[in-house]
């Protein structure tokens, strides 16, 4: 028979090849489909977790943290010797000018107006000028705003026109007043907002010069000169609008405004949270426009010949409590130091404290935190805290924790997912506006506090330090137990196992054990480690723990249970790795007269180690994510103390996730999602370590 008749030829061959190829295409599509489904499922899972880990939170603080800090500094500063506060900047300037032992600070416009009698003191060598203010390198830089309401912009033609004129001309004029122009993008943004709110443009504005009416401006003295200048300029150009400006401080200005008694607020600071709440409760929607920048000037009299500037530290001391000039800098005269500063209600005061000291409680020294506790808590509570552990011996973290827990007392009113936060921002803001005390915060639930705070029953204070430490401890025990035992068993079975019935039985058993559900290991752990070996696993026989409270539900029991759980996996992987060592190495080794153990030790193990490590790391990451057996072995639901060793009670990350997910409050679900992110990150790191190890030890044989 010729071969032609045995194989397809010609068109038949082509059709045959095509058919085979089509089959390949079908399989490929199926694999692609499976992969796609897998990837989509994974993405959806990840998105859900991320969706829950970020988003808006409505928080209520019993005491607003920045107000608390401000109040404390106000008290400290006003109680210091030689302090005098002024509502009127001209007055303030005149008083400083009159005394060579006084120092103070004031808005740049007023410094400029009194430049002939005042001398400016640079801070850390930086003086306010167009450049240092624009790039923010000057410490006491602040934005200057005017506020008006959305309602006024829409309904009151005079206000709309005045604000529009203001925004389109302020940058030309502001330097004559003594301030610095706002950044271009801020001005552009302000102009855009105005156009959108009013539906007007600069051109329509010019056409409607006949618009007449009154605009009442209230607020602080800092911005007032700009507003006045703009009003005059507008009138000169022929507009019929009358602008009245009253100077009573930003706080009072906002109050007028929120009560509907002013159309425009001159403000040297942004509207405060409670002010905004007041406005909203009166159906006034404040809109802010940045109009310029101020570089508040620290000044002394021209008759003062020794001050040439301050370092930040000197400035902090000089403007808070330093009694004498020589205390600030040793070679300055030994005479009392007088502080002339803007009134505590003014925006300048608050901005100064914020810039020079900071309004975040966490950024302050232990001393300040203790003082905050003493000032804000009832005497009895302070005394009790001191009894537990004197405040001055507590760490910064402990004190801050107390400040948050006892004074600020944040409570989460409501939380929103990331998607809601992005797409339903307005609804959320409206909802929050209903509850006047609540403030909206965009929060990443995974944050430093979350990682470092211990467990807590309050979601806003809860962290996962306890769980992270618990997980690490448990995994450490698991590792110490299962890796040596597993690798040893693998060596025995691979190298010494003779294939007798006992070895075969063990082998079959191990393969089956790898498939046993983890909960069963939990029950085994409960029976063996927690109950039967209790004296051992509780640490009692070592005399390390208090026998009355000791029980077997410890890190040791958990670690050993998980160790048993992953032992089969480690053994199977290690055997695989040992088996993969080329036979040729063993033969070469034996051929040189090496013993079995020398062969194993010098050739088999070194070449199997990358594989053993990879397998062990993957097994360990399984243990890391295991939940069910730990629930059975008795992970604690609520422990607030960090685990300190193998005999501590414990909780782990997956347990924490499990417990938080089971809670009804929404905030705990966010915490659970954040914990999942932490867990996944740690697992990813473990797997990356496995990959790196494998690649690093890749052999060339």
């Amino acid at each position: 028979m010729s071969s032609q008749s045995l194989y397809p030829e010609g068109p038949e061959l082509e059709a045959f090849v095509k058919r085979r190829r089509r089959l390949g295409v079908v399989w490929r599509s199926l694999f692609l489909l499976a992969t796609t489904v897998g990837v989509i499922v994974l993405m959806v899972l990840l998105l859900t977790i991320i969706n829950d880990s970020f988003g808006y939170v409505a928080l209520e603080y019993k005491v607003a943290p920045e107000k608390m800090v401000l109040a404390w500094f106000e008290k400290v500063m006003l109680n210091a010797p030689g302090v005098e506060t002024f509502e009127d900047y001209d007055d303030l300037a005149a008083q400083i000018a009159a005394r060579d032992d006084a120092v103070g600070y004031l808005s740049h416009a007023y410094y400029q107006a009194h430049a002939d009698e005042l001398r400016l003191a640079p801070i850390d060598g930086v003086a306010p000028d167009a450049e240092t203010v624009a790039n923010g390198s000057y410490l006491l830089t602040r934005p200057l705003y005017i506020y008006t309401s959305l309602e006024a912009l829409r309904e009151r033609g005079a206000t709309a026109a005045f604000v529009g004129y203001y925004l389109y001309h302020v940058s030309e004029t502001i330097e004559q007043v003594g301030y610095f122009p706002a950044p271009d993008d801020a001005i552009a943004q302000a102009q855009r907002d105005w156009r959108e709110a009013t539906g007007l443009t600069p051109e329509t504005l010019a056409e409607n010069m006949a618009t007449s009416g009154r605009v009442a401006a209230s607020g602080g003295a800092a911005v007032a000169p700009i507003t006045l200048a703009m009003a005059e300029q507008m009138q000169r150009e022929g507009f019929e609008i009358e602008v009245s400006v009253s100077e009573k401080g930003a706080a009072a200005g906002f109050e007028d405004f929120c009560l509907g008694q002013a159309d425009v607020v001159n403000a040297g600071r942004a509207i405060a949270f409670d002010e905004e709440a007041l406005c909203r409760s009166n159906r006034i929607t404040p809109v802010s426009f940045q109009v310029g920048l101020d570089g508040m000037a620290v000044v002394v009299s021209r008759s003062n010949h020794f001050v040439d500037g301050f370092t930040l530290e000197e400035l902090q001391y000089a403007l808070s409590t330093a009694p004498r000039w020589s205390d600030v800098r040793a070679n300055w005269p030994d005479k009392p130091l007088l502080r002339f500063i803007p009134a505590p209600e003014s925006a300048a005061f608050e901005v100064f404290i914020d810039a020079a000291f900071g309004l975040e409680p966490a950024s302050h020294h232990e001393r300040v935190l203790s003082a905050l506790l003493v000032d804000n808590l009832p005497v009895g509570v302070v005394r009790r805290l001191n009894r537990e552990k004197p405040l001055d011996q507590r760490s910064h973290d402990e004190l801050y924790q107390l400040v948050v827990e006892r004074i600020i007392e944040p409570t989460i009113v409501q939380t929103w997912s990331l998607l809601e936060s992005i797409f339903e921002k307005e609804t959320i803001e409206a909802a929050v506006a209903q509850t006047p005390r609540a403030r909206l915060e965009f929060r990443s639930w995974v944050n430093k506090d979350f990682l470092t705070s211990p467990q807590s029953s309050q979601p806003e204070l809860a962290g996962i330090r306890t769980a992270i430490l618990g997980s690490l401890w448990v995994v450490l025990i698991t590792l110490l137990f299962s890796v040596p035992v597993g690798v040893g068993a693998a060596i025995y079975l691979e190298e010494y196992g003779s294939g007798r019935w006992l070895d075969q039985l063990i082998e079959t058993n191990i393969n089956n054990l790898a498939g046993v559900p983890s909960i069963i290991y939990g029950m085994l752990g409960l029976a063996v480690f927690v109950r039967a070996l209790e004296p051992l696993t509780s640490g009692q026989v070592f005399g390390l723990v208090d026998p009355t409270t000791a029980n077997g539900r410890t890190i040791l029991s958990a670690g050993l249970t998980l160790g048993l759980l992953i032992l089969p996996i480690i053994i199977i992987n290690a055997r695989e790795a040992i088996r993969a060592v080329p036979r040729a190495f063993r033969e070469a080794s034996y051929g040189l007269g090496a013993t079995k153990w020398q062969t194993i030790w010098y050739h088999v193990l070194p070449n199997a180690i990358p594989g053993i490590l990879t397998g062990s790391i993957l097994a360990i990451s399984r243990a890391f994510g295991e939940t069910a057996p730990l629930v059975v072995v008795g992970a604690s639901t609520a422990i607030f103390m960090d685990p300190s060793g193998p005999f501590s009670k414990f909780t782990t990350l997956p347990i924490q996730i499990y417990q938080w997910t089971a809670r009804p409050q929404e905030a705990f679900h966010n915490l659970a999602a954040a914990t999942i992110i932490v867990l996944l990150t740690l697992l990813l790191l473990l797997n990356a370590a496995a990959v790196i190890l494998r690649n690093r030890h890749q052999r060339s044989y």
Partner: protein
Amino acid sequence: MSAKPATNGKYAIEAHNLNVFYGDFQAVRDVNLRIEKNKITALIGPSGCGKSTVLRSFNRMNDLIPTARVHGQVRFHGKNIYDPDVDPVLVRRRIGMVFQKPNPFPKSIYENVAWGAKINGFKGDLDQLVEESLRAAALWDEVKNKLDASGYSLSGGQQQRLCIARAIAVKPDIILMDEPASALDPIATLRIEDLMIELAKNYTIIVVTHNMQQAARVSDYTAFFTVTPDRTGYLEEFGPTSELFTMPKSKVTEDYITGRFG
């Protein structure tokens, strides 16, 4: 090699009624063979006739194969190495082996040569031993500047010479070579052959080869193996190479060496 222990006369190793089984399968039957000292003995024969099996039974390498069983005797220094009181490690210490496929350890060239010495309690100067062994294996000039490089950075022929250097570093009495040049090109093959002739001055060499010319060129004695119809190998003819190749006693041998076999 006067330092070596006295041996029983003329022969380095002797097989008496050697039968090797893999499970139930008998691989070789009734092999009787006496290998002379400081000579090169070639084992030739068709594939599957049991050459490797016989060679490996000379230093108890077959112990590594769980199913392998050896009956009969292999006498080395007058003692049967399969006696229960004989430690195979000691046997292999004296009878080294070079394999068909070069198998350096995944270590440096230096370590490859030095490792055997280290585990066998070598007390002399390691550096010197390494140099000496590499010189004896005709590899020294090629690697003297890269002793720290991996054994796997060498060419196939160099790797095989490294394995020979490794084998002779522990100063065995006998070196078993299983087709040491089968993976090499003609030039490298010739180098290995020259090397074997050089080594024969100090060592007894038993080499398995499929290359008739090679057997004819290098060996002093040749053993021709072949198989029975049930695939069991046996020794058909053994004698000085010159005789066996020029006037074989057996018809089967003649057919094989003249290329008329199977």
